[in-house]
């Protein structure tokens, strides 16, 4: 409840403002505009700041929302409230169609693509006969409840701000959930998220649609506020401005969107009314100032205003500690047809002319710690990537309990009970340790986006967080549970990755250099933990360069050199093996 308190206060303040005596009506119009922009910016926060997908085309989705209600109410006489679902649906469907194309684009292709379709749609709006071409559609009926018609800016004000507050609440609920964590992991690349079963293309499409629906809602409100719709507010310029709003406010924060909308809308108003006095009569001067400020802002405060404000608050919002007594059911085990846990038969990976893994075969049995060692570039990490489905093998067979993996995507491999850590730590630095580890339990929960937004996911969510907290305790990081993952030392981050992998409830744990960056005592604790896991029935396959650590810990060692297996055996046998000595130290002259 304490987390809701600021929201309730804000809602009350907003509710009182129009009732204050002596408030100029012009201020209410400004607040209406701020609310409308905040809705779009909130979508962009989720899409761009959190999900890492930059869109310059959000204004076009406002257009879908506005034109849908404009056409339905004027040409077909449909009641404005009935057009709301239609407006949201049309923007949503447009988002699905555009999103299927757009979210597949990587890197800078994505923003470029959004500019292109943003402009294309603008021209479409301004050329279509039934949308009134450049003149648009006017005479849209106002929103009304019974005989109360929201004709003036201070009546529709409530409709707009109820929409803003509800959307903010739903968005924050969404971010603080299983689906939300998957979305927040997107910006850091997709490999880590996929290794824990997140369907990244689906998560991207979800945020894309969500942002579009919020924009559609804004467009719907805009149409009934202005009582008219024409193409200008839905063009490229507006799309750029929305992105500007999100960046100014703080693209990673829901309230940053609202704050940014406030700053930009007011600033624009001030500039438009005063600049002509200073420079005399010229129009568009505000765009010059806008542009210059955008460049300045990126140089001076790329994170935006909201996080800057928050860091100045004298108190920090408290976090809830999860109740670890809640049990999470075990993952459903895949039926096995073979007693061998992991069977690798002549796995081969070729990158062009380079043979990274050359017909490597070995097994991992139940309750066994196997170490994969070899000099740098021996193909150890590539072997890991073949097992976990990150890379497709050129040839050969990999099977888990007799179920052939056959180049399945990582999301399928993890379902077989194989989880992993990464050589280069792949955590989300601006999420807490708890949230990072909970991503590991992604497949063990089942709440979707809608139930998260409506807070129907709380029992499911409590179980996931409890499991995450238990695994954090198990690896000995309870002290750091609420810290941001990015603030931990590299060694601790590796341990967080292990906790995340344990959340999968795996049968086989793949650890890529888990001891790198650890101090002596920490290494011993790690070794004890791995032995304990093995005795509890888990198997571990690890890549490691610390020979003392490996020789002490491993039951069996597989040695790779230049992609080829050169030896396999107990630590004692490997130490004496002449081929291994030659590979590591070179041949005696």
């Amino acid at each position: 409840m304490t987390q809701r308190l600021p929201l309730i206060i804000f809602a009350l303040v907003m509710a009182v403002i129009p009732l204050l005596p002596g408030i100029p009506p012009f201020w209410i119009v400004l607040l209406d505009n701020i609310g409308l922009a905040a809705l779009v910016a909130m979508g962009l926060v989720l899409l761009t700041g959190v999900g890492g997908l930059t869109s310059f085309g959000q204004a076009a989705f406002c257009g879908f929302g506005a034109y849908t209600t404009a056409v339905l109410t004027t040409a077909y006489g449909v009641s404005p409230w009935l057009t709301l679902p239609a407006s949201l649906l049309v923007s949503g469907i447009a988002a699905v169609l555009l999103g299927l194309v757009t979210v597949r684009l990587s890197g800078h292709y994505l923003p470029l693509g959004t500019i292109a379709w943003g402009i294309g749609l603008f021209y479409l709006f301004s050329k279509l006969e039934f949308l009134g071409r450049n003149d648009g559609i006017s005479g849209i009926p106002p929103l009304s409840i019974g005989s109360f018609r929201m004709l003036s800016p201070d009546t529709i004000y409530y409709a707009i701000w109820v929409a803003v507050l509800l959307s903010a609440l739903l968005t924050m609920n969404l971010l603080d959930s299983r689906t939300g964590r998957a979305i927040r992991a997107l910006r850091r690349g997709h490999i880590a998220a996929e290794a824990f079963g997140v369907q990244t293309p689906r998560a991207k499409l979800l945020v894309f649609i969500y942002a579009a629906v919020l924009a559609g809602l804004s467009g719907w409100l805009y149409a009934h506020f202005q009582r008219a719709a024409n193409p200008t507010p839905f063009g490229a310029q507006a799309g750029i401005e929305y992105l500007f709003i999100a960046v100014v406010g703080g693209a990673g924060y829901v309230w940053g969107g609202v704050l940014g909308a406030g700053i930009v809308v007011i600033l624009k108003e001030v500039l438009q009314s005063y600049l002509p006095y200073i420079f005399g009569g010229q129009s568009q001067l505000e765009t010059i100032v806008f542009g210059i400020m955008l460049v300045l802002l990126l140089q001076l405060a790329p994170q935006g205003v909201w996080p800057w404000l928050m860091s100045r608050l004298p108190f920090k919002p408290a976090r809830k500690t999860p109740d670890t007594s809640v049990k999470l059911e075990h993952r459903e085990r895949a039926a096995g047809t073979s007693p061998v846990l992991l069977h690798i038969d002549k796995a081969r990976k070729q990158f062009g002319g380079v043979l990274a893994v050359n017909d490597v075969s070995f097994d991992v049995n139940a309750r066994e710690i196997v170490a994969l060692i070899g000099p740098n570039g021996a193909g150890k990490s590539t072997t890991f990537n073949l097992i976990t489905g990150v890379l497709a093998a050129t040839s050969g067979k990999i099977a888990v309990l007799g179920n052939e993996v056959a180049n399945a995507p990582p999301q399928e491999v993890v379902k077989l009970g194989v989880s992993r850590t990464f050589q280069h730590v792949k955590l989300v630095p601006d999420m807490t340790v708890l949230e990072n580890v909970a991503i590991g339990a992604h497949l063990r929960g089942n709440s979707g986006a809608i139930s998260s937004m409506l807070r129907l996911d709380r029992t499911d969510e409590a179980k996931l967080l409890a499991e995450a907290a238990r695994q954090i305790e198990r690896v000995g990081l309870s002290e750091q549970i609420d810290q941001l993952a990015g603030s931990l030392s590299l060694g601790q981050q590796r341990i967080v990755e292990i906790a995340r992998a344990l959340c999968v409830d795996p049968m086989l744990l793949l650890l890529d250099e888990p001891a790198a960056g650890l101090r002596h005592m920490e290494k011993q604790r790690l070794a004890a933990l791995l032995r304990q896991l093995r005795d509890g029935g888990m198997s571990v396959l690890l890549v490691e360069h610390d020979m003392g650590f490996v020789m002490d810990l491993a039951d069996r060692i597989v040695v790779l050199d230049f992609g080829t297996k050169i030896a396999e055996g107990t630590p004692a046998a490997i130490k004496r093996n002449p081929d291994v000595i030659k590979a590591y130290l070179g041949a005696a002259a």
Partner: protein
Amino acid sequence: MNTTIMLFLLQDGITNGAIYALLGLALVLVFAVTRVILIPQGEFVTYGALSYAMLATGQVPGTVRLAVAMGLVAFALDLFFARKALHARLVMRSVALNIAFPVALLGLVYALVGPNTPIAVNIALALLIVAAIGLFLYRIAFQPIAHTSVLVLLIASVGCHLALQGLGLVFFGAEGLRAPALSSAAVTAGPLRFTGQSLAVYALTVGFIVGLWLFFGYTKTGKALRATAVNRLGARLVGIRTTLSGQIAFLLASVIGAISGILIVPITTLYYDTGFLIGLKGFIAAIIGGLVSYPLTAVAAIVVGIVEAFSSFYASNFKEVIVFTLILPVLVLRSLAAPQVEEEKD
């Protein structure tokens, strides 16, 4: 449709396409070196074209004053960033480039401007003005954030576009301008008549494509510029001056943009905001070329030009819609062909 119309449309499309190709090349060039997606490329076009048009009528364009102002800011930035290690040579170089050059240009413009100034002088002045603006734009807006992600650079680029377009309205007004033709020569081939103007367009486009392709593929400087794009730190470690690379790229891009502008302003009336749309079409070509390939970009630009010409004949209302949606199937193909690679961002 008869063959003559088709030929006319083709000719029209190819001429426009050649302009788009020039712009597309500049975009690829800047992206390949600095990772900046240069939205203000369109402003270089309008600045070049309209500065030339104003000079042709004997007026001093406001752009030259902008160049001086930007030079001052660039100088201040140079001093500020080098405040810990100021030495005379550095200051002298900065004064020469950021103050002496634009001020000299300003003096030159005032000295030479007039209704009877030869076309060649006007062109040279317009090119120099835009070159200075391009150079300083990189120094002011992009050099301080050169290490950041493509996305941040893109948003900054949009900011520059907004500012420059607004300034364009101040300098040139809302009325469109047109300039005299560069040459009155013409060649007739069958039903088609090739003006000297369009022949110049073709020649320059082909020249730039071949030149850039050779420069980046086969010269040491060209390779150094490309290395800067891939890994700035690595490039610096092997002795490449990365800021210089960025400046060269922006200089080339602004000159190419201004040339395109000067080439089209005798054919069509240009407004202060026309450049953006023209630039975006060059953009579509550049994207089709994957922002890396010069020949592919050129071919794509010609296709864009032809599609535009035909759609303005058959569905003139939907010309822009067709041109801009052209990009979607291309993007789909690109994303299907190139599987996503892991990006380490932020």
